[in-house]
């Protein structure tokens, strides 16, 4: 183990009849990266993973793994191993036989196969259950066996299709940590499909946000969160407010724009006048108070207040802006508490207003 492969996806498409599941995406996943494909259901992330694995034919484009183009290779010849969503353990085989399945297919003799499978189970701390059937295991245990079965082929890249979705919330967090630890110790490339942004943020070195068969943004989690490329990314990652409007003018590297309700805002950047514009503002960067400069705040009516312990979440509605979320620290809130229905001024700094791009422009 230890050899990791770079995965290079070159304008790959997947077309089912009339629907385009994956629309000419290109992506480079460096060797040894923990990459999360993130997006809502039906965004093409699973199709992408299955194309890398070889369980789905590629309609057009190429996939390179390390130095070889694997586009037309069968799954087992690619040097990838896949872990399926429901783990897909063979119900009629015990754990040793499950883990040693690929060795059996290769014709490795029984003694050697069982020894290797047992060693792999031991690595996953499942050796005590070696003679059990999958149905006798809990979800977390099944996942470990599925991992053992995938890793025994000594893959260059491990592909995981929503590996944590079948687990309860508590186990999810524990297995998440185990996955990360495993990836670090093996050093191979992991590609992990998920629809949970929290999971992706916790695990990934590279988050690939997908929507409608296209990649919206592929970057380090911090970049994705702090500089979301598009309004979709900002919305999907959560904890962002989005204000949409039309550019009215720009000066000194600042753009002014107006929302349909008549309020006007400013942000750093210089798009052309008249163009539509979206900006994102992190909910925890908004404060209660007067704007330091025009266009960096507005006054609104508090629609809802949620106390969350260390912070308080306010939902504010302004002219042309509905459901603007503000998260303030409990200290800041209880110094000057407001009630539902009260009017409050909101403000933020110029650098916290991020202009969001549009995919088609």
């Amino acid at each position, binding site marked *: 183990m230890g050899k990791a492969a770079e995965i290079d996806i070159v304008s790959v498409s997947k077309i089912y009849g009339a629907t385009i599941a994956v629309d000419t995406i290109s992506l480079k996943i460096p060797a040894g990266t923990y990459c999360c494909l993130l997006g809502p259901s039906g965004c093409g992330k699973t199709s992408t993973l299955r194309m890398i694995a070889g369980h789905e034919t590629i309609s057009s484009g190429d996939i390179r793994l390390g130095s070889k183009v694997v586009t037309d290779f069968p799954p087992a010849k690619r040097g990838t191993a896949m872990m*399926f969503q429901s783990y*897909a353990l063979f119900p009629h085989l015990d754990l040793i036989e499950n883990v040693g399945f690929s060795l059996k297919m290769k014709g490795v003799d029984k003694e050697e196969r069982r020894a290797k499978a047992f060693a792999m189970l031991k690595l996953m701390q499942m050796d005590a259950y070696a003679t059990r059937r999958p149905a006798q295991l809990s979800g977390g245990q099944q996942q470990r066996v599925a991992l053992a079965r995938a890793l025994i082929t000594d893959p260059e890249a491990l592909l995981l299709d929503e590996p944590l979705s079948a687990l309860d919330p508590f186990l999810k967090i524990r297995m998440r940590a185990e996955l990360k630890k495993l990836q670090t110790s093996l050093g191979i490339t992991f590609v992990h499909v998920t629809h949970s942004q929290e999971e992706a943020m916790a695990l990934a070195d590279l988050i690939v946000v997908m929507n409608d068969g296209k990649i919206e943004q592929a970057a380090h989690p911090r970049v994705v969160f702090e500089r979301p490329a598009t309004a979709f990314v900002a919305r999907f990652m959560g904890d962002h407010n989005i204000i949409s409007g039309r550019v009215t003018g720009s000066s000194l590297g600042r753009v002014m724009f107006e929302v349909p309700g008549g309020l006007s805002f400013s942000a750093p950047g210089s798009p052309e006048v008249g163009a539509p514009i979206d900006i994102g503002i992190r909910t925890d960067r908004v404060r209660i108070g007067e704007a330091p400069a025009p266009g960096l705040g507005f006054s609104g009516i508090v629609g809802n207040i949620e106390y969350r312990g260390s912070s308080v979440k306010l939902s504010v509605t302004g002219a042309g802006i509905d459901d603007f979320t503000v998260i303030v620290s409990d200290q800041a809130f209880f110094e000057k508490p407001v009630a539902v229905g009260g009017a409050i001024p909101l403000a933020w700094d110029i650098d916290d207003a991020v202009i969001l791009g549009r995919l088609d422009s």
Partner: protein
Amino acid sequence: MKTKAMAAIAAEETVLGTETGIAPGKTKRRRAHRVSALASYIQATPLAVILGLFLLLPILTIGMVSFWDYDSVRIYPDFVTFNYTETLGSWVTWKTYLNTLKFTAIVWFLTMVIGFWVAYFLAFHIRSATMQMILFLVCTVPFLTSNIIRMISWVPFLGRNGLINSSLIELGIVPKPLEFLLFSEFAVVLAMVHLYTLFMVTPIFNTLMRIDRSLIEAARDAGASGFQVLTNVIIPLAKPGIAIGSIFVVTLVMGDFITARFMSGGQSASVGLMMANQISLLQYPAAAANAVILLIVVLLIVAAILRVVDIRKEL
């Protein structure tokens, strides 16, 4: 871990038990328990009555009659064992049983092979669920006519001057009609395979449809070839269906008499046929003894099948 959890639950229950032991709610709970137990007996009654009346009672009657005496006119209530000693002591019985077992083995093997492939084709090669349903119904269409009619329809096809023979002669492939086609053991096996293959297709199709498709992908991911997927994943998982189909086919063929009589033209014997002959000679006790022996043999075969394959998860 499981046992620990169970122990914990058990401990909790005993705690609850001692608590309710003091509380006046105990008798109430016990009464509720008794009522619910009664309710489940009542729910089981209709099926028990039907099975008792239409399955258990006739079998007991047959068992009883098998010990009775008879002459050529009537039967006499008695307790004699010569029905059994006569049946088991006769060379004809053994030959007939062997013949029936031979038919059973051949028909079982053929229906299993054909049935598995039909089911496999339906389950894995037909993509749309509608098409699967339509083709499955097509398989059952022959069942809209009676056994006898389906058997008779082979006659003009296989006969001396039937379709096959006349075609073969006209094409110059054979100089004179093939005699083995009709009224032969070949014809018996052919008709039985035709009649009973669906009993294999249905349960096997059912198990194949329940195989998680991702298991096949997982096998492919592990480098299995198409044939390896079949032998390592699909066939082992289809075993319960194959076992259920085998039970159907074995019991049907073992008890068959009309196909054997009709398609062999009376040249081949089966246990069922032997019994039918005894009945037509009014030797009811002898036929009953034969039936009991047949029942035991069939049950032994079924038990053997169940020993090999665990079908519980299918039921």
